[in-house]
Protein backbone atom coordinates (compact mmCIF):
# COMPACT_ATOMS: atom_id res chain seq x y z
CA UNK A 1 0.00 0.00 0.00
CA UNK A 2 1.22 3.53 -0.80
CA UNK A 3 0.63 6.41 1.57
CA UNK A 4 1.91 9.96 1.92
CA UNK A 5 3.72 10.18 5.22
CA UNK A 6 6.61 11.84 6.99
CA UNK A 7 9.80 10.11 8.04
CA UNK A 8 8.66 10.12 11.64
CA UNK A 9 5.25 8.65 10.77
CA UNK A 10 6.98 6.01 8.69
CA UNK A 11 9.20 5.01 11.62
CA UNK A 12 6.24 4.83 14.00
CA UNK A 13 4.46 2.60 11.52
CA UNK A 14 7.51 0.35 11.25
CA UNK A 15 7.55 -0.02 15.04
CA UNK A 16 3.91 -1.05 14.96
CA UNK A 17 4.45 -3.50 12.10
CA UNK A 18 7.42 -5.04 13.95
CA UNK A 19 5.10 -5.81 16.90
CA UNK A 20 7.26 -4.06 19.46
CA UNK A 21 6.40 -4.79 23.11
CA UNK A 22 7.86 -1.88 25.06
CA UNK A 23 8.71 1.66 23.96
CA UNK A 24 10.56 4.14 26.15
CA UNK A 25 9.65 7.66 25.13
CA UNK A 26 10.92 11.12 25.90
CA UNK A 27 10.25 14.12 23.68
CA UNK A 28 12.90 16.05 21.79
CA UNK A 29 12.59 17.92 18.51
CA UNK A 30 12.71 16.74 15.73
CA UNK A 31 12.11 13.14 16.85
CA UNK A 32 9.04 13.95 18.95
CA UNK A 33 6.35 13.15 16.40
CA UNK A 34 7.53 9.51 16.29
CA UNK A 35 6.62 9.00 19.91
CA UNK A 36 3.49 11.14 19.64
CA UNK A 37 2.34 8.97 16.77
CA UNK A 38 3.09 5.81 18.77
CA UNK A 39 1.18 7.17 21.77
CA UNK A 40 -1.78 7.93 19.51
CA UNK A 41 -1.66 4.48 17.94
CA UNK A 42 -1.73 3.05 21.44
CA UNK A 43 -4.66 5.29 22.43
CA UNK A 44 -6.55 4.15 19.32
CA UNK A 45 -5.87 0.55 20.30
CA UNK A 46 -3.81 -0.24 17.18
CA UNK A 47 -0.61 -0.80 19.11
CA UNK A 48 -0.18 -3.38 21.83
CA UNK A 49 3.19 -2.01 22.98
CA UNK A 50 3.54 -0.72 26.50
CA UNK A 51 4.58 2.93 26.33
CA UNK A 52 6.74 4.25 29.17
CA UNK A 53 6.79 8.02 29.34
CA UNK A 54 10.06 8.50 31.18
CA UNK A 55 11.70 11.56 32.67
CA UNK A 56 14.90 11.66 30.57
CA UNK A 57 16.62 10.09 27.59
CA UNK A 58 18.99 8.28 29.91
CA UNK A 59 15.95 6.55 31.35
CA UNK A 60 14.38 6.06 27.92
CA UNK A 61 17.32 3.89 26.92
CA UNK A 62 17.36 2.17 30.33
CA UNK A 63 13.66 1.24 29.98
CA UNK A 64 14.26 -0.05 26.47
CA UNK A 65 17.26 -2.06 27.64
CA UNK A 66 15.44 -3.39 30.71
CA UNK A 67 12.64 -4.68 28.51
CA UNK A 68 15.01 -6.07 25.88
CA UNK A 69 17.06 -8.17 28.28
CA UNK A 70 13.83 -9.41 29.86
CA UNK A 71 12.69 -10.91 26.60
CA UNK A 72 10.60 -8.32 24.79
CA UNK A 73 11.20 -6.43 21.53
CA UNK A 74 11.73 -2.80 22.41
CA UNK A 75 12.31 0.55 20.78
CA UNK A 76 13.14 4.16 21.50
CA UNK A 77 13.97 7.31 19.55
CA UNK A 78 15.86 10.50 20.23
CA UNK A 79 17.86 13.40 18.80
CA UNK A 80 20.81 15.63 19.54
CA UNK A 81 21.17 16.54 23.24
CA UNK A 82 18.99 13.56 24.05
CA UNK A 83 21.40 11.16 22.38
CA UNK A 84 24.33 12.76 24.17
CA UNK A 85 22.51 12.55 27.51
CA UNK A 86 21.81 8.89 26.73
CA UNK A 87 25.43 8.22 25.76
CA UNK A 88 26.25 6.17 28.87
CA UNK A 89 23.29 3.85 28.29
CA UNK A 90 24.07 3.60 24.56
CA UNK A 91 27.32 1.92 25.52
CA UNK A 92 25.70 -0.14 28.25
CA UNK A 93 23.23 -1.50 25.73
CA UNK A 94 25.83 -2.66 23.22
CA UNK A 95 28.01 -4.01 26.04
CA UNK A 96 24.96 -5.98 27.20
CA UNK A 97 24.61 -7.38 23.66
CA UNK A 98 20.94 -6.42 23.93
CA UNK A 99 19.08 -6.55 20.62
CA UNK A 100 16.91 -3.45 20.28
CA UNK A 101 16.34 -0.58 17.88
CA UNK A 102 16.67 3.17 18.23
CA UNK A 103 15.89 5.82 15.64
CA UNK A 104 17.82 9.08 15.72
CA UNK A 105 16.31 12.06 13.91
CA UNK A 106 19.50 14.03 13.66
CA UNK A 107 19.96 17.56 14.89
CA UNK A 108 22.79 19.93 15.72
CA UNK A 109 24.35 19.81 19.16
CA UNK A 110 24.51 22.80 21.52
CA UNK A 111 25.78 25.21 22.63
CA UNK A 112 24.36 27.41 21.25
CA UNK A 113 20.82 26.14 20.84
CA UNK A 114 20.03 24.99 17.33
CA UNK A 115 17.21 22.65 16.47
CA UNK A 116 18.02 22.15 12.79
CA UNK A 117 19.55 19.28 10.96
CA UNK A 118 23.13 18.08 11.24
CA UNK A 119 24.45 14.53 11.59
CA UNK A 120 27.09 15.11 14.26
CA UNK A 121 24.93 13.64 17.05
CA UNK A 122 24.49 10.36 15.18
CA UNK A 123 28.10 10.20 14.00
CA UNK A 124 29.40 10.76 17.51
CA UNK A 125 28.21 7.25 18.47
CA UNK A 126 30.38 5.50 15.88
CA UNK A 127 32.61 3.96 18.55
CA UNK A 128 29.84 2.66 20.76
CA UNK A 129 29.35 -0.84 19.36
CA UNK A 130 26.02 -0.44 17.58
CA UNK A 131 25.04 -1.34 14.04
CA UNK A 132 24.37 2.05 12.45
CA UNK A 133 22.29 2.73 9.34
CA UNK A 134 21.32 6.07 7.86
CA UNK A 135 18.26 6.70 5.71
CA UNK A 136 17.89 9.04 2.75
CA UNK A 137 14.10 9.05 2.36
CA UNK A 138 11.07 8.43 4.59
CA UNK A 139 10.69 5.19 2.66
CA UNK A 140 14.17 4.11 3.63
CA UNK A 141 13.53 5.17 7.24
CA UNK A 142 10.63 2.69 7.34
CA UNK A 143 12.54 -0.04 5.51
CA UNK A 144 15.72 0.27 7.55
CA UNK A 145 13.78 0.31 10.83
CA UNK A 146 12.04 -2.93 9.92
CA UNK A 147 15.31 -4.51 8.80
CA UNK A 148 16.97 -3.24 11.98
CA UNK A 149 14.80 -5.48 14.18
CA UNK A 150 15.68 -8.50 12.10
CA UNK A 151 19.43 -7.69 11.99
CA UNK A 152 19.54 -6.88 15.68
CA UNK A 153 17.99 -10.22 16.66
CA UNK A 154 20.06 -12.32 14.27
CA UNK A 155 22.19 -14.76 16.33
CA UNK A 156 25.23 -13.77 14.30
CA UNK A 157 24.77 -10.19 15.43
CA UNK A 158 22.87 -9.78 18.73
CA UNK A 159 23.59 -6.09 18.95
CA UNK A 160 21.46 -2.94 19.11
CA UNK A 161 20.82 -1.10 15.85
CA UNK A 162 20.62 2.64 15.40
CA UNK A 163 18.77 4.05 12.39
CA UNK A 164 19.47 7.68 11.60
CA UNK A 165 17.57 10.11 9.42
CA UNK A 166 17.98 13.80 8.75
CA UNK A 167 15.95 15.85 11.20
CA UNK A 168 13.11 17.85 9.60
CA UNK A 169 14.37 17.14 6.07
CA UNK A 170 13.21 13.53 6.45
CA UNK A 171 11.48 13.48 9.80
CA UNK A 172 8.98 16.17 8.81
CA UNK A 173 8.75 15.79 5.03
CA UNK A 174 5.68 13.99 3.82
CA UNK A 175 6.12 11.93 0.74
CA UNK A 176 5.01 8.69 -0.88
CA UNK A 177 5.88 5.63 1.13
CA UNK A 178 5.21 2.01 0.30
CA UNK A 179 3.98 0.08 3.33
CA UNK A 180 4.47 -3.68 3.36
CA UNK A 181 1.55 -5.74 4.67
CA UNK A 182 1.45 -6.92 8.28
CA UNK A 183 1.52 -10.49 7.06
CA UNK A 184 4.68 -9.90 5.03
CA UNK A 185 6.35 -8.18 7.95
CA UNK A 186 5.36 -11.01 10.30
CA UNK A 187 7.04 -13.46 7.97
CA UNK A 188 10.02 -11.19 7.52
CA UNK A 189 10.68 -10.65 11.23
CA UNK A 190 10.60 -13.97 13.10
CA UNK A 191 9.66 -14.19 16.79
CA UNK A 192 12.21 -12.52 19.05
CA UNK A 193 15.56 -14.18 19.60
CA UNK A 194 18.15 -12.94 22.06
CA UNK A 195 21.34 -14.28 23.61
CA UNK A 196 20.01 -14.54 27.17
CA UNK A 197 16.92 -13.59 29.16
CA UNK A 198 16.76 -12.18 32.65
CA UNK A 199 14.21 -14.50 34.18
CA UNK A 200 13.83 -16.37 37.50
CA UNK A 201 13.72 -19.57 35.45
CA UNK A 202 17.14 -19.07 33.87
CA UNK A 203 18.70 -17.35 36.89
CA UNK A 204 21.19 -15.81 34.48
CA UNK A 205 22.63 -12.46 35.42
CA UNK A 206 24.04 -9.76 33.21
CA UNK A 207 26.88 -7.33 33.63
CA UNK A 208 28.57 -8.07 36.93
CA UNK A 209 32.30 -7.42 37.10
CA UNK A 210 34.30 -9.34 34.51
CA UNK A 211 38.03 -9.95 34.77
CA UNK A 212 40.26 -8.03 32.32
CA UNK A 213 40.84 -10.79 29.77
CA UNK A 214 37.18 -11.73 29.67
CA UNK A 215 36.18 -8.10 29.27
CA UNK A 216 38.60 -7.65 26.40
CA UNK A 217 37.34 -10.83 24.75
CA UNK A 218 33.82 -9.46 24.99
CA UNK A 219 34.89 -6.23 23.34
CA UNK A 220 36.60 -8.17 20.55
CA UNK A 221 33.49 -10.27 20.15
CA UNK A 222 31.36 -7.14 19.67
CA UNK A 223 33.88 -5.83 17.16
CA UNK A 224 33.72 -9.10 15.22
CA UNK A 225 29.93 -9.25 15.41
CA UNK A 226 29.82 -5.82 13.79
CA UNK A 227 32.25 -6.69 11.00
CA UNK A 228 30.58 -10.06 10.41
CA UNK A 229 27.14 -8.43 10.31
CA UNK A 230 27.86 -7.29 6.76
CA UNK A 231 26.68 -10.61 5.34
CA UNK A 232 23.62 -10.59 7.60
CA UNK A 233 22.69 -7.10 6.46
CA UNK A 234 22.95 -8.07 2.79
CA UNK A 235 20.94 -11.23 3.37
CA UNK A 236 18.23 -9.36 5.29
CA UNK A 237 18.19 -6.67 2.58
CA UNK A 238 17.69 -9.21 -0.18
CA UNK A 239 14.82 -10.77 1.74
CA UNK A 240 13.30 -7.37 2.33
CA UNK A 241 13.37 -6.66 -1.41
CA UNK A 242 10.90 -9.54 -1.77
CA UNK A 243 8.25 -7.78 0.31
CA UNK A 244 8.92 -4.26 -0.95
CA UNK A 245 8.79 -3.69 -4.72
CA UNK A 246 10.82 -0.48 -4.35
CA UNK A 247 13.59 -2.08 -2.30
CA UNK A 248 17.18 -1.57 -3.44
CA UNK A 249 18.75 -3.44 -0.51
CA UNK A 250 21.23 -6.25 -0.74
CA UNK A 251 24.27 -4.03 -0.60
CA UNK A 252 25.33 -1.96 2.36
CA UNK A 253 25.83 1.27 0.46
CA UNK A 254 24.40 2.62 -2.77
CA UNK A 255 26.16 3.55 -6.02
CA UNK A 256 24.78 5.96 -8.57
CA UNK A 257 26.33 6.21 -12.05
CA UNK A 258 29.66 5.13 -10.61
CA UNK A 259 30.79 2.37 -12.99
CA UNK A 260 32.30 4.56 -15.68
CA UNK A 261 32.93 7.62 -13.52
CA UNK A 262 36.41 9.10 -13.12
CA UNK A 263 35.45 11.12 -10.08
CA UNK A 264 33.01 10.39 -7.31
CA UNK A 265 31.20 12.30 -4.62
CA UNK A 266 30.42 10.51 -1.34
CA UNK A 267 27.45 11.52 0.77
CA UNK A 268 25.07 10.19 3.40
CA UNK A 269 21.39 10.88 4.04
CA UNK A 270 18.73 13.00 2.39
CA UNK A 271 20.88 15.38 0.41
CA UNK A 272 22.27 12.44 -1.55
CA UNK A 273 19.15 12.87 -3.67
CA UNK A 274 19.98 16.49 -4.40
CA UNK A 275 23.51 15.35 -5.20
CA UNK A 276 22.07 12.83 -7.68
CA UNK A 277 20.31 15.67 -9.47
CA UNK A 278 23.62 17.51 -9.63
CA UNK A 279 25.41 14.40 -10.95
CA UNK A 280 22.84 14.06 -13.73
CA UNK A 281 23.28 17.68 -14.70
CA UNK A 282 27.07 17.45 -14.60
CA UNK A 283 26.99 14.37 -16.80
CA UNK A 284 24.80 16.24 -19.30
CA UNK A 285 27.57 18.83 -19.36
CA UNK A 286 30.19 16.19 -20.05
CA UNK A 287 31.67 15.66 -16.58
CA UNK A 288 32.24 12.02 -15.83
CA UNK A 289 31.12 11.85 -12.20
CA UNK A 290 29.16 9.44 -10.01
CA UNK A 291 27.82 9.26 -6.49
CA UNK A 292 28.34 6.84 -3.64
CA UNK A 293 25.89 6.98 -0.76
CA UNK A 294 26.96 5.53 2.56
CA UNK A 295 24.01 3.75 4.13
CA UNK A 296 25.84 1.81 6.83
CA UNK A 297 28.42 3.55 9.02
CA UNK A 298 28.76 0.40 11.12
CA UNK A 299 29.62 -2.04 9.78
CA UNK A 300 31.96 0.00 7.59
CA UNK A 301 32.28 -2.08 4.48
CA UNK A 302 35.89 -1.66 3.42
CA UNK A 303 35.48 -4.28 0.71
CA UNK A 304 32.42 -2.72 -0.87
CA UNK A 305 33.92 0.75 -0.68
CA UNK A 306 37.19 -0.35 -2.29
CA UNK A 307 35.31 -2.15 -5.05
CA UNK A 308 33.22 0.89 -5.86
CA UNK A 309 35.62 3.74 -5.29
CA UNK A 310 39.10 2.22 -5.37
CA UNK A 311 39.64 2.95 -9.07
CA UNK A 312 38.52 6.57 -9.06
CA UNK A 313 40.97 9.35 -9.79
CA UNK A 314 39.83 11.37 -6.81
CA UNK A 315 36.80 11.58 -4.54
CA UNK A 316 34.96 14.36 -2.82
CA UNK A 317 33.36 13.59 0.54
CA UNK A 318 30.61 15.91 1.72
CA UNK A 319 29.88 15.70 5.44
CA UNK A 320 26.99 17.17 7.35
CA UNK A 321 28.87 16.50 10.57
CA UNK A 322 32.15 17.37 12.19
CA UNK A 323 34.90 15.88 14.20
CA UNK A 324 36.08 19.27 15.30
CA UNK A 325 39.75 19.79 14.62
CA UNK A 326 39.81 16.92 12.11
CA UNK A 327 37.08 17.48 9.51
CA UNK A 328 34.05 15.38 8.64
CA UNK A 329 33.65 11.85 10.06
CA UNK A 330 32.83 10.32 6.65
CA UNK A 331 35.92 11.96 5.21
CA UNK A 332 38.07 10.51 7.99
CA UNK A 333 36.58 7.04 7.54
CA UNK A 334 37.21 7.12 3.80
CA UNK A 335 40.75 8.42 4.24
CA UNK A 336 41.49 5.37 6.34
CA UNK A 337 39.98 3.05 3.72
CA UNK A 338 41.20 4.29 0.34
CA UNK A 339 44.59 5.16 -0.99
CA UNK A 340 43.54 7.80 -3.53
CA UNK A 341 43.26 11.61 -3.37
CA UNK A 342 40.30 12.56 -1.17
CA UNK A 343 38.97 16.00 -0.45
CA UNK A 344 36.55 16.67 2.40
CA UNK A 345 33.81 19.27 2.56
CA UNK A 346 31.98 20.17 5.72
CA UNK A 347 28.72 21.97 5.13
CA UNK A 348 25.04 22.02 6.03
CA UNK A 349 25.72 22.27 9.75
CA UNK A 350 22.99 23.57 12.04
CA UNK A 351 20.42 23.53 9.25
CA UNK A 352 22.37 25.45 6.60
CA UNK A 353 20.40 24.60 3.47
CA UNK A 354 22.41 22.86 0.75
CA UNK A 355 20.65 22.01 -2.51
CA UNK A 356 21.36 20.61 -5.95
CA UNK A 357 22.97 23.85 -7.15
CA UNK A 358 25.46 23.72 -4.31
CA UNK A 359 26.36 20.16 -5.18
CA UNK A 360 26.69 21.16 -8.79
CA UNK A 361 29.16 23.90 -8.01
CA UNK A 362 31.03 21.87 -5.37
CA UNK A 363 31.50 18.87 -7.63
CA UNK A 364 32.38 20.82 -10.78
CA UNK A 365 34.90 22.94 -8.88
CA UNK A 366 36.37 19.78 -7.36
CA UNK A 367 36.77 18.03 -10.71
CA UNK A 368 38.43 21.12 -12.12
CA UNK A 369 40.83 21.17 -9.19
CA UNK A 370 41.53 17.45 -9.30
CA UNK A 371 42.35 17.52 -12.99
CA UNK A 372 45.22 19.91 -12.58
CA UNK A 373 46.44 19.50 -9.03
CA UNK A 374 46.63 17.24 -6.02
CA UNK A 375 43.43 17.51 -4.01
CA UNK A 376 43.08 16.98 -0.28
CA UNK A 377 42.25 18.68 2.99
CA UNK A 378 38.93 19.88 4.31
CA UNK A 379 36.93 22.86 3.07
CA UNK A 380 34.13 24.52 5.03
CA UNK A 381 31.56 25.39 2.40
CA UNK A 382 28.87 28.05 2.79
CA UNK A 383 26.11 28.11 0.17
CA UNK A 384 25.85 31.24 -1.96
CA UNK A 385 22.96 32.82 -0.10
CA UNK A 386 24.65 32.65 3.29
CA UNK A 387 25.77 36.19 3.95
CA UNK A 388 28.65 37.29 6.10
CA UNK A 389 27.63 36.54 9.68
CA UNK A 390 28.28 39.09 12.35
CA UNK A 391 29.69 37.41 15.41
CA UNK A 392 30.39 38.72 18.86
CA UNK A 393 33.92 39.82 19.61
CA UNK A 394 35.85 38.03 22.34
CA UNK A 395 36.41 39.87 25.55
CA UNK A 396 39.25 39.31 27.95
CA UNK A 397 38.32 38.25 31.40
CA UNK A 398 39.13 40.57 34.26
Amino acid at each position, binding site marked *: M*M*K*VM*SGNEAVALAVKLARVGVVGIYPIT*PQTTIIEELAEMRARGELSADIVRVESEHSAMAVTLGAAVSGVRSFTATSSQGLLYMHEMVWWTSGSRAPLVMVVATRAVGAPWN*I*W*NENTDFMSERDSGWIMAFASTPQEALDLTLQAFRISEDPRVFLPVMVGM*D*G*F*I*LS*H*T*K*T*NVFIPSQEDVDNFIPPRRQPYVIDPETKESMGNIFPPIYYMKLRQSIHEAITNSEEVIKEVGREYNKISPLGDYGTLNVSYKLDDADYAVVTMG*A*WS*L*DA*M*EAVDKLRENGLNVGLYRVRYIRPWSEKEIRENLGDKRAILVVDRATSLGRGGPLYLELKSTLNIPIKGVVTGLG*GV*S*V*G*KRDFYSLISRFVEEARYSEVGGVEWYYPGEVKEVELGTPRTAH
Partner: protein
Amino acid sequence: MESSLEIRFHGRGGQGVVTAANVLAEAASLENMFSSAFPIYGAERRGAEIESYCRISRTQIRETSPIEEPDVVVILDPTLLKISNPLRGLRKDGKVVINWKGASPSVGFKTYTVDATGIALELKLVKSGWPLVNIVMLGALVKATGVPSLESLKMAIGQEFSGNLGELNKRAVELSFERTFEVEQIVA
Protein backbone atom coordinates in the same frame (compact mmCIF):
# COMPACT_ATOMS: atom_id res chain seq x y z
CA MET B 1 0.71 19.89 -15.80
CA GLU B 2 4.29 19.65 -17.05
CA SER B 3 6.35 16.89 -15.49
CA SER B 4 6.54 18.65 -12.14
CA LEU B 5 5.05 21.45 -10.08
CA GLU B 6 6.54 23.34 -7.14
CA ILE B 7 4.17 25.14 -4.84
CA ARG B 8 5.04 27.39 -1.91
CA PHE B 9 2.51 28.30 0.77
CA HIS B 10 2.76 31.49 2.82
CA GLY B 11 0.79 32.15 5.96
CA ARG B 12 1.05 32.69 9.66
CA GLY B 13 1.79 30.15 12.37
CA GLY B 14 -1.50 28.59 13.41
CA GLN B 15 -3.25 29.06 10.06
CA GLY B 16 -2.60 25.52 8.95
CA VAL B 17 -0.01 26.27 6.26
CA VAL B 18 1.71 22.96 6.87
CA THR B 19 -1.51 20.96 6.81
CA ALA B 20 -2.47 22.56 3.50
CA ALA B 21 0.76 21.33 1.87
CA ASN B 22 0.30 17.88 3.40
CA VAL B 23 -3.27 17.50 2.15
CA LEU B 24 -2.23 18.64 -1.32
CA ALA B 25 0.58 16.06 -1.36
CA GLU B 26 -1.87 13.36 -0.31
CA ALA B 27 -4.33 14.36 -3.01
CA ALA B 28 -1.62 14.24 -5.68
CA SER B 29 -0.51 10.83 -4.47
CA LEU B 30 -4.09 9.58 -4.90
CA GLU B 31 -3.62 10.30 -8.61
CA ASN B 32 -0.47 8.16 -8.62
CA MET B 33 1.86 11.11 -8.75
CA PHE B 34 4.91 11.53 -6.57
CA SER B 35 4.65 14.29 -4.05
CA SER B 36 6.49 15.69 -1.08
CA ALA B 37 5.43 18.27 1.47
CA PHE B 38 7.37 19.89 4.25
CA PRO B 39 7.37 23.04 6.37
CA ILE B 40 10.13 25.53 6.81
CA TYR B 41 12.04 23.73 9.49
CA GLY B 42 11.92 25.59 12.72
CA ALA B 43 10.02 26.55 15.80
CA GLU B 44 6.31 26.93 15.26
CA ARG B 45 4.92 30.13 16.67
CA ARG B 46 1.38 31.38 16.33
CA GLY B 47 1.23 34.54 14.25
CA ALA B 48 4.76 34.39 12.88
CA GLU B 49 5.32 34.16 9.17
CA ILE B 50 5.47 30.51 8.06
CA GLU B 51 6.25 28.83 4.76
CA SER B 52 5.55 25.33 3.62
CA TYR B 53 6.35 23.56 0.40
CA CYS B 54 4.82 20.98 -1.86
CA ARG B 55 6.42 19.29 -4.84
CA ILE B 56 4.30 17.23 -7.23
CA SER B 57 5.92 15.22 -9.98
CA ARG B 58 5.34 12.43 -12.46
CA THR B 59 8.81 11.10 -11.64
CA GLN B 60 10.52 10.45 -8.33
CA ILE B 61 11.29 13.62 -6.42
CA ARG B 62 14.95 13.96 -5.53
CA GLU B 63 15.14 17.47 -4.18
CA THR B 64 14.95 17.98 -0.45
CA SER B 65 15.69 21.66 -0.07
CA PRO B 66 13.11 24.44 0.35
CA ILE B 67 11.53 25.70 -2.86
CA GLU B 68 13.24 28.88 -4.00
CA GLU B 69 11.80 29.09 -7.54
CA PRO B 70 8.18 28.01 -7.24
CA ASP B 71 5.68 27.58 -10.04
CA VAL B 72 2.87 28.66 -7.75
CA VAL B 73 2.72 30.78 -4.62
CA VAL B 74 -0.30 30.40 -2.33
CA ILE B 75 -0.81 33.29 0.08
CA LEU B 76 -3.15 32.57 2.97
CA ASP B 77 -2.83 36.01 4.52
CA PRO B 78 -2.71 39.02 2.17
CA THR B 79 -1.07 41.24 4.81
CA LEU B 80 2.09 39.24 4.23
CA LEU B 81 2.49 41.06 0.90
CA LYS B 82 3.28 44.18 2.89
CA ILE B 83 5.59 42.75 5.53
CA SER B 84 7.65 40.27 3.53
CA ASN B 85 8.23 39.07 0.01
CA PRO B 86 6.21 35.93 -0.62
CA LEU B 87 6.69 36.37 -4.36
CA ARG B 88 10.47 35.99 -4.24
CA GLY B 89 11.88 33.66 -6.85
CA LEU B 90 8.48 33.00 -8.46
CA ARG B 91 9.00 31.93 -12.07
CA LYS B 92 8.07 34.50 -14.76
CA ASP B 93 5.17 32.35 -15.91
CA GLY B 94 4.31 31.49 -12.32
CA LYS B 95 0.94 31.91 -10.65
CA VAL B 96 -0.21 33.56 -7.46
CA VAL B 97 -3.21 32.26 -5.54
CA ILE B 98 -4.25 34.68 -2.84
CA ASN B 99 -6.87 35.02 -0.15
CA TRP B 100 -8.37 38.36 -1.20
CA LYS B 101 -11.63 40.22 -1.01
CA GLY B 102 -12.63 43.05 -3.36
CA ALA B 103 -10.64 44.73 -6.13
CA SER B 104 -7.76 42.53 -7.26
CA PRO B 105 -4.21 43.29 -6.22
CA SER B 106 -1.60 44.08 -8.83
CA VAL B 107 1.44 41.88 -8.26
CA GLY B 108 2.85 41.45 -11.75
CA PHE B 109 1.96 37.77 -12.09
CA LYS B 110 -1.00 35.78 -13.22
CA THR B 111 -3.19 35.96 -10.15
CA TYR B 112 -6.17 34.03 -8.76
CA THR B 113 -8.17 35.52 -5.92
CA VAL B 114 -10.65 33.92 -3.60
CA ASP B 115 -12.32 35.28 -0.47
CA ALA B 116 -11.25 32.31 1.62
CA THR B 117 -11.84 34.16 4.90
CA GLY B 118 -15.42 34.86 3.82
CA ILE B 119 -16.01 31.22 2.92
CA ALA B 120 -14.50 30.01 6.21
CA LEU B 121 -16.71 32.36 8.22
CA GLU B 122 -19.76 31.42 6.16
CA LEU B 123 -19.21 27.74 6.97
CA LYS B 124 -18.19 28.53 10.56
CA LEU B 125 -14.75 27.02 9.97
CA VAL B 126 -13.20 28.83 12.90
CA LYS B 127 -10.66 27.61 15.42
CA SER B 128 -9.24 29.54 18.37
CA GLY B 129 -10.76 32.73 16.92
CA TRP B 130 -9.14 32.34 13.52
CA PRO B 131 -10.98 31.45 10.31
CA LEU B 132 -9.49 28.22 8.94
CA VAL B 133 -8.54 29.24 5.41
CA ASN B 134 -5.83 26.68 4.72
CA ILE B 135 -7.95 23.97 3.09
CA VAL B 136 -10.27 26.55 1.52
CA MET B 137 -7.27 27.89 -0.42
CA LEU B 138 -6.65 24.46 -1.92
CA GLY B 139 -9.93 24.73 -3.84
CA ALA B 140 -8.63 27.88 -5.50
CA LEU B 141 -5.25 26.27 -6.16
CA VAL B 142 -6.90 23.35 -7.92
CA LYS B 143 -8.86 25.82 -10.00
CA ALA B 144 -5.65 27.66 -10.91
CA THR B 145 -3.46 24.66 -11.77
CA GLY B 146 -5.85 21.80 -12.50
CA VAL B 147 -3.67 19.58 -10.32
CA PRO B 148 -4.90 17.48 -8.70
CA SER B 149 -8.60 17.09 -9.43
CA LEU B 150 -11.20 18.46 -7.04
CA GLU B 151 -12.35 14.87 -6.44
CA SER B 152 -8.91 13.72 -5.31
CA LEU B 153 -8.61 16.78 -3.13
CA LYS B 154 -11.90 15.98 -1.41
CA MET B 155 -10.80 12.39 -0.91
CA ALA B 156 -7.55 13.54 0.69
CA ILE B 157 -9.51 15.90 2.95
CA GLY B 158 -11.63 12.97 4.02
CA GLN B 159 -8.49 11.07 4.99
CA GLU B 160 -6.98 13.96 6.91
CA PHE B 161 -10.06 15.16 8.81
CA SER B 162 -12.72 12.96 10.31
CA GLY B 163 -16.41 13.71 10.82
CA ASN B 164 -17.91 17.15 10.58
CA LEU B 165 -14.63 18.96 10.03
CA GLY B 166 -13.99 16.81 6.97
CA GLU B 167 -17.46 17.49 5.55
CA LEU B 168 -17.13 21.24 6.13
CA ASN B 169 -13.74 21.38 4.46
CA LYS B 170 -15.00 19.39 1.48
CA ARG B 171 -17.86 21.85 1.11
CA ALA B 172 -15.37 24.72 1.52
CA VAL B 173 -13.15 23.60 -1.37
CA GLU B 174 -16.20 23.21 -3.57
CA LEU B 175 -17.21 26.79 -2.80
CA SER B 176 -13.72 28.20 -3.26
CA PHE B 177 -13.33 26.30 -6.53
CA GLU B 178 -16.50 28.04 -7.75
CA ARG B 179 -15.62 31.45 -6.39
CA THR B 180 -12.05 31.81 -7.61
CA PHE B 181 -11.46 34.77 -9.92
CA GLU B 182 -8.73 34.79 -12.51
CA VAL B 183 -7.07 38.17 -12.86
CA GLU B 184 -5.29 39.05 -16.07
CA GLN B 185 -1.58 39.43 -15.67
CA ILE B 186 -0.68 43.07 -15.12
CA VAL B 187 2.85 43.84 -16.12
CA ALA B 188 4.26 46.38 -13.74
